[in-house]
């Protein structure tokens, strides 16, 4: 008779995955680093000017107030009027930059992906040269160029500048998308009765919409947050975009911290909303478009 084995099962200790833990710790720090200033910004924005200046600081506002927000969003007073004007300027410049960016990047990327033409490689890489230099390097040359074209003190100068900065990435990203769409899909559509253009609009465009959305977010945020060029190219008060406007506006005499913070918070709202709504596409764009299947 076989002896019943009562072998003790060895206690299997799951080895601690140090990499995973290191990653968690790192992410926690990274989150604190980004979230704390945001939290402080929001907390300060609901304090009164007096409470904001107290020392030691009030960690939690004793008398929270939304007055700063009402003031900013009320077009009947001077502050509200100007803030809303800056907000509109920023929105208008960013939106136009985004739309024009898509209008240029989509056909450009498609052409780079589908057509073989002389100078194709050279052109494609020269598009990227802009990204090899920090943006400020182009500040003076572009300023001179804009002055020569008579565009200084117009929103056109900003839109043109933001376009040149945003396009390389947009084209590069979108080309990856078009490379991954089999040419047979367009061919099938053309045989099924579509013109070349219809095949592009009806079949290819919908398939590349995650890429188009991602590049749109990139150019919108880039334009929305830009400071140095707006500061240099614009001097008239009624043309200012938000980053420059806010900074000038609230530091005119003494810094109105709660006012500044609530304006900054309002400025970040469109970007955050954009991201939350479209992040699904954004992630897909960055993972799908980049990798060859």
């Amino acid at each position: 008779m076989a002896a019943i084995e009562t072998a003790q099962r060895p206690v299997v200790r799951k080895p601690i995955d140090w990499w995973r833990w290191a990653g968690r710790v790192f992410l926690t720090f990274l989150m604190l680093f980004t979230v704390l200033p945001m939290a402080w910004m929001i907390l300060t924005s609901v304090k009164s000017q007096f409470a904001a200046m107290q020392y030691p600081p009030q960690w939690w506002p004793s008398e929270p107030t939304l007055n700063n927000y009402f003031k900013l969003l009320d077009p009947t007073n001077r502050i509200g009027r100007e803030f809303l004007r800056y907000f509109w300027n920023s929105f208008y410049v960013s939106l136009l930059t985004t739309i024009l960016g898509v209008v240029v990047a989509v056909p450009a990327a498609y052409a780079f992906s589908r057509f073989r033409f002389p100078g194709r490689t050279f052109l494609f890489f020269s598009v990227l040269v802009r990204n090899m230099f920090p943006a400020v390097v182009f500040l003076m040359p572009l300023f001179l160029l804009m002055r020569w074209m008579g565009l200084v003190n117009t929103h056109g100068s900003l839109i043109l500048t933001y376009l040149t900065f945003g396009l390389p990435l947009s084209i590069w990203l979108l080309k990856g998308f078009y490379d991954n769409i089999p040419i047979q899909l367009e061919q099938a559509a053309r045989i099924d009765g579509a013109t070349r253009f219809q095949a592009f609009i009806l079949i290819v465009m919908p398939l590349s919409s995650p890429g188009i959305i991602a590049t749109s977010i990139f150019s919108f945020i880039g334009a929305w947050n830009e400071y140095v060029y707006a500061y240099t190219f614009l001097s008239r008060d009624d043309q200012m975009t938000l980053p420059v406007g806010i900074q000038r506006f609230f530091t005119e005499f003494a810094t109105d911290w709660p006012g500044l913070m609530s304006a900054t918070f309002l400025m970040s709202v469109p970007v955050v909303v954009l991201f939350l709504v479209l992040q699904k596409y954004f992630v897909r764009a960055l993972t799908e478009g980049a990798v060859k299947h």
Partner: protein
Amino acid sequence: MAEVVLKDVMKNYGSLYAVNNVSFAVEHGEFVALVGPSGCGKTTTLNLIAGLIPMSGGDIVIGDRVVNDLDPKDRDIAMVFQNYALYPNKSVFKNLAFPLQMRKLPKAEIEAKVMAAAKVLDISHLLERRPRELSGGQQQRVALGRALVRDPAAFLMDEPLSNLDAKLRVAMRSELKRFHHNLNATVIYVTHDQLEAVTMADKMAVMHGGVLQQYDTPANVFGNPVNTFVASFVGSPAMSLIPLDVVSKGTEVALRSPEEGWELPLSPMNARKASASSNGKLVLGARHSTLKLHKSAAAGAAPGKVYTVEPTGDVTFAQIFVNGAVVNISLDPTVAIEPDEAVWIEFDQDRMHLFDGETTMALKAA
């Protein structure tokens, strides 16, 4: 009336002639297989017929129109692609409806036609699914359905079965043949698989290096290959090709092995063909089933050495070295031979093929 005619069709990419002077005519209702090894220009030819790429030269006629400058959409053709090319963001129903929508048919008619095609193809239960939710075989059917919903002048198919597993491929092969029969449709079918071509097609166009080698019925291509390429490409196992010298002794003509010295006397008919050789050399071609194996020297037999023996059940295939060339032969399974055994191969004078040693073209009696 011929439905599709190609005349001196050319396509070059720089100095590479992907399609070189190809001419053939497909009759109405004919199933033509365009066959050849990978890279020989089959897809390019099909794309030229479809109008998906511009021609470098020549003419293409579909129906009664020269279509050289027409867009694909105006050529009245349907196409099935190797990778199916189903629209990934559309449901099966919308995939099938797309060609009809583009032709602005009324909604009710579109629905009726899609339903009818889906029924024929047995995909009615899949209409709401997306292509990626289908198996390979189902995708294949949808691709076929998208071609069938219309009533085109010709169907073009680019290796439609090559992505299916072997069993499904054989099943779809018979089904496709049945479709062709029922619809009486004109089909140009691209494949690299000569067996598919031989079994399905009314006529086959064998291509090699962008050049059309032979355009004929499968029986004729099999029975009278025009050159050594066609001879070795069509048929499995491949036709054996042995390079030999032609020697004449008075009225007698024989073939001599340049290396081993043995001679093979030719029948009068074959002698006349051999005499037409341009440089005194030729290639002897023989299919496995026409050869006879002897265990000892025999008249009209060439000496060889067994290389491999492959029993398959009802027939045994053997490879035998004759004059340095591999000869395929089929044997009765009861024949016992061993690798490295010396054997003699007898050729059937009536069913052997003789090709010119220089041009590789089939020799004709002068």
